[in-house]
C-alpha cells in the first residue's frame, strides 16, 4: 500500500472507530460521519486519476450530493431530539435507562 492510500484508509478507519466509541454529543457523532464521508471522497476522486478513467469522476460529485442529504437529515434529527430531550447528549437517547 502506498502512503497516499494508507492515509485515506487510516482516516476512514479512525473516523469509523470514533463513531463506534462513545460520543458525548450527538453532533460529535455527526462530525465523525462527515469525516468518514470526506475520507471516502478523496479516494473516489483519486482512483479515476490513477487509473485514467475520466467518466468515474462523477462519482465523488454524486457522493457529495448524497452526503448533503445525510447532513441535512442528521441536523434535523439533532434539532428534533434536542427539542424533545432537552439536550443533545447521547446518553439521554439511551434505551436502557427508564
Amino acid at each position, binding site marked *: *500500500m*502506498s*502512503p*497516499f492510500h*494508507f*492515509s*485515506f484508509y*487510516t*482516516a476512514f*478507519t*479512525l*473516523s469509523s*472507530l*470514533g*463513531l463506534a466509541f462513545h*460520543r*458525548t*454529543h450527538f*453532533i*460529535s457523532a455527526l*462530525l*465523525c460521519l*462527515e*469525516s468518514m464521508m*470526506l*475520507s471516502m*471522497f*478523496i479516494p473516489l*476522486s*483519486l482512483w*479515476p*486519476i*490513477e487509473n*485514467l478513467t*475520466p*467518466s*468515474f*469522476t*462523477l462519482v*465523488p*460529485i*454524486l457522493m*457529495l*450530493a*448524497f452526503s*448533503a*442529504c445525510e*447532513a*441535512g*437529515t442528521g*441536523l*434535523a*434529527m*439533532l*434539532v*428534533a431530539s*434536542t*427539542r*424533545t430531550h432537552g439536550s*443533545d447528549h447521547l446518553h439521554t437517547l439511551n434505551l436502557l435507562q427508564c
Partner: protein
Amino acid sequence: MTYFVIFLGVSFILGALAVASNPSPYYGVVGLVLASVVGCGWLMSLGVSFISLALFMIYLGGMLVVFVYSVSLAADPYPEAWGDWGVMGYGLGLVLVVVLGVVWGEAIDFWEVGVVTVDGGGVSLVRLDFSGVAVLYSYGVGLFLVAGWGLLLVLFVVLELVRGLSRGAIRAV
C-alpha cells in the same frame, strides 16, 4: 513535491484523528476543517483541480451550517480541548491502534510513492475531471435526476422531522 504530498496525507490523518478523539464539538469542527482543506490541497497537487474546487466551495460552504449548529446547539460550560486527559486518552488509543495495525500487518510500503496522473499541456487538452463531470449532464443524466430527487426527498424529510412538538416524527413520549 512527493514529500509535500505525503505531508498533506499525514495532516489528513491528523485531522481525522482530531475529529475522532471525542473533543468538544467546537474543536472537532476545527479538525474537520483541517482535513477538508488539506484534502483540497492534496487533490490539487495530484491534478484533480475541478473536484478540488467543488470540495472546497460546496463542501466547506455546506459545512458552515454544521459548524454553526455545533457551536450553538452543543453548549458546553467547560469545553474539552485536546489537552484534557479524556480526549488525550482517546487520541492516544486510536494512534496505538493505527501503529499496531501498520507494524503488525506491514501495511505500508514507502517505496511505491509514485502516483500516475495526467498533466495537461496546451489549450486543446481537457483535464480528466473536467470531462468526467461533464458526463453527468449527458450520459449520466439518470444519476443526476436521482441525486436531485434525493435532495427533494430530504427537504420533506427535514420538514417532517422538525415540524413541531406534538405533530413531528420525533416527540417526547
